[in-house]
């Protein structure tokens, strides 16, 4: 009951006109960037991070939480009306959603996705209240060796499980770790990778890395692909649902929530896997199998609930362990750090008011989102008419301003440009962006835990593998790393080729433009 009381305290703190306004602003901006393909909540939070230095920490976190949740709502609108997912988490929604819209049921598709998102978001946010303190209680007992192992799981998970290619994932991770290494060694005071530059001696600011990779990189990438046919949005009135639609939607909503929340909470879970699983589940369980592929409402309701629930799930490791499981969470971690708050298991003990206020603001933001999205979905689609040059000029402006604002050093602008070039090259060669940003943020933390573990045992290597938690983590890492090898051996043993391994069946998606989605994969959510 303590949790509920603390949450009520959070509500009391959050309900001030200024905080509510910030929450409203956050969800509005979040929905807008969710609607626009290529611009995701991660990029937006990175761009706004330097701008919000003037705000109190509570308000900037309320803003970021709102943007994160809003992005999950906005993505579905474009999926349904345009067959172009606004976010990678909404790719699956386009499968049935766009078919529904073409069959004249766009209003119902938008309604089930908005209401489903609300239901899932509310249930999953409530789940945070009960799960997060348990995780914290457990995490406080962990020492450096265990944390070392958990961070390693996050590294291997983001690099190897997400994305299509392990080699590319690990390459991106190593670039990120190298970026995190630049600066002065905190134990010996040695200069590392600074090339004698006094500007680099003070570490590269994570904000500059995030803005460079997400905003400048994406802007350059879009500029290189500026010319593209315009499309026509399917006209739609006010979203609404009939009694039958409600009857067919509520079970997928709950199942989607149950799938999304845990996937959001584990490192490397993300929103893409649970949305796809939810789609498969609904296709299997539906009473109207003949409608799947032609616009079944279950195929919209389930995945949309799953992606919002996973967004809430992300908050659990973020607040309890200081571990980001997706790009937006990674940048929220950077935001904590820039305010001098150390994210980790002690966060809830040290800053209980802040944490509970953030959770309470998520409930309120979720309600705002329902109000904003249900009647206004067709209006949001009008954002797609903004010419790209205007949009990306604005992004580059904010990016440069933000990077300069961090330290007021012109050097950071050159660094921004170089990192933007790196971000462009990564998109060009299909390297995922998430492992890089996770590596940059968690790399120094990883090093600190490793140093601490080794110091306690006086440099003996056995200090790295203390405790059962670490054992489980290392076993998981080994399993992930060795799996392709084992799978190939088993495949050879059976005499079959490994082309038809189960589990890599890609979504059946005749209409969805995957080539366009692929370039945003690392940017969304």
């Amino acid at each position, binding site marked *: 009951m303590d949790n509920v009381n603390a949450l009520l305290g959070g509500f009391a703190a959050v309900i001030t006109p200024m905080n509510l306004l910030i929450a409203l602003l956050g969800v509005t901006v979040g929905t807008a960037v969710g609607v626009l393909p290529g611009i995701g909540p991660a990029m937006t939070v990175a761009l706004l991070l330097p701008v919000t230095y003037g705000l109190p920490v509570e308000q900037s976190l309320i803003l970021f939480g709102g943007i994160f949740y809003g992005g999950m709502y906005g993505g579905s609108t474009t999926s349904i009306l*345009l067959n*172009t997912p606004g976010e990678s988490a909404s790719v699956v929604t386009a499968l049935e959603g766009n078919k529904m819209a073409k069959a004249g049921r766009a209003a119902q598709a938008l309604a089930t996705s908005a209401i489903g998102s609300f239901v899932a978001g509310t249930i999953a946010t409530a789940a945070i209240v009960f799960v997060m303190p348990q995780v914290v209680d457990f995490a406080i007992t962990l020492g450096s060796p265990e944390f070392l192992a958990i961070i390693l799981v996050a590294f291997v998970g983001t690099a190897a499980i997400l994305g299509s290619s392990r080699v590319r994932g690990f390459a991106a991770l190593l670039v990120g770790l190298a970026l995190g290494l630049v600066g002065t060694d905190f134990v010996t005071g040695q200069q590392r990778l600074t090339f004698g530059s006094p500007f680099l001696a003070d570490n590269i600011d994570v904000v500059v890395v995030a803005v460079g990779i997400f905003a400048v990189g994406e802007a350059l990438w879009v500029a290189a692909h*500026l010319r*593209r046919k*315009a*499309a*026509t949005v399917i006209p739609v009135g006010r979203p609404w649902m009939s009694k039958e639609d409600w009857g067919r939607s509520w079970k997928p909503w709950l199942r989607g929530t149950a799938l999304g929340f845990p996937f959001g909470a584990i490192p490397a879970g993300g929103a893409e896997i649970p949305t796809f699983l939810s789609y498969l589940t609904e296709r299997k369980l539906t009473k109207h199998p003949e409608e799947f592929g032609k616009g079944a409402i279950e195929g919209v309701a389930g995945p949309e609930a799953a992606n919002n629930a996973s967004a809430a799930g992300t908050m659990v490791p973020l607040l309890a362990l200081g571990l980001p499981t997706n790009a937006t969470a990674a940048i929220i971690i950077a935001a904590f750090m820039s305010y001098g708050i150390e994210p980790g298991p002690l966060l809830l003990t040290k800053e209980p008011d802040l944490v509970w206020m953030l959770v309470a603001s998520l409930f309120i933001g979720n309600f705002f989102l329902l109000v904003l999205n249900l009647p206004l979905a067709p209006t949001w689609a009008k954002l797609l*008419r*903004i*010419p790209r040059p205007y949009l990306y000029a604005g992004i580059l402006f904010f990016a440069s301003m933000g990077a300069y604002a961090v330290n007021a050093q012109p050097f950071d602008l050159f660094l921004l440009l170089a990192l933007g070039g790196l971000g462009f090259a990564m998109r060009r060669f299909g390297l995922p962006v998430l492992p890089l940003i996770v590596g940059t943020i968690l790399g120094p933390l990883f090093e600190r835990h490793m140093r601490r573990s080794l110091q306690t045992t006086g440099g003996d290597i056995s200090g790295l593998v203390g405790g059962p938690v670490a054992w489980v983590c290392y076993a998981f890492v080994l399993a992930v790393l060795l799996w392709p090898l084992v799978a190939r051996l088993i495949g050879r043993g059976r005499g079959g080729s490994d082309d038809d391994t189960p589990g890599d069946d890609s979504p059946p998606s005749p209409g969805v433009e995957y080539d366009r989605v692929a370039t945003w994969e690392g940017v969304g959510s």
Partner: protein
Amino acid sequence: MTVLVGYVPNALGEATLRAGVEESRRRSEPLVVLNMSRDDVLVDARRAPADDLERVDRDVRELGVDVEVVQVEEGGDAAEALVEAATTHHASVLVIGLRHRSAVGKLILGSVAQRVLLGAPCPVLAVKAQS
């Protein structure tokens, strides 16, 4: 020689089309209907969907006027596209739609109509939507 019409899928476009049909009958020249959408936006309200262009083609033919429907996708500037099409299709007259612009609109956006008027190689007929 032809009569060239700049077509957008709305009431103004209908009015333009009607004027174009009249002009094409008067001059007994075939009609060319041009629709353009920009390449730097995801969604362009001025892009006519395929079924709309088919309808235009059918309706105009029913009125006994010879018509060619041209769609420019991945276009840039509407004024340039119209002027260019007027040259390539040897237009004897170019029919365009005019609409009111708000004060802010005047500040931000240049007038396509003005640039067509100044750039066109032939006389231009400007039409307003019926109120």
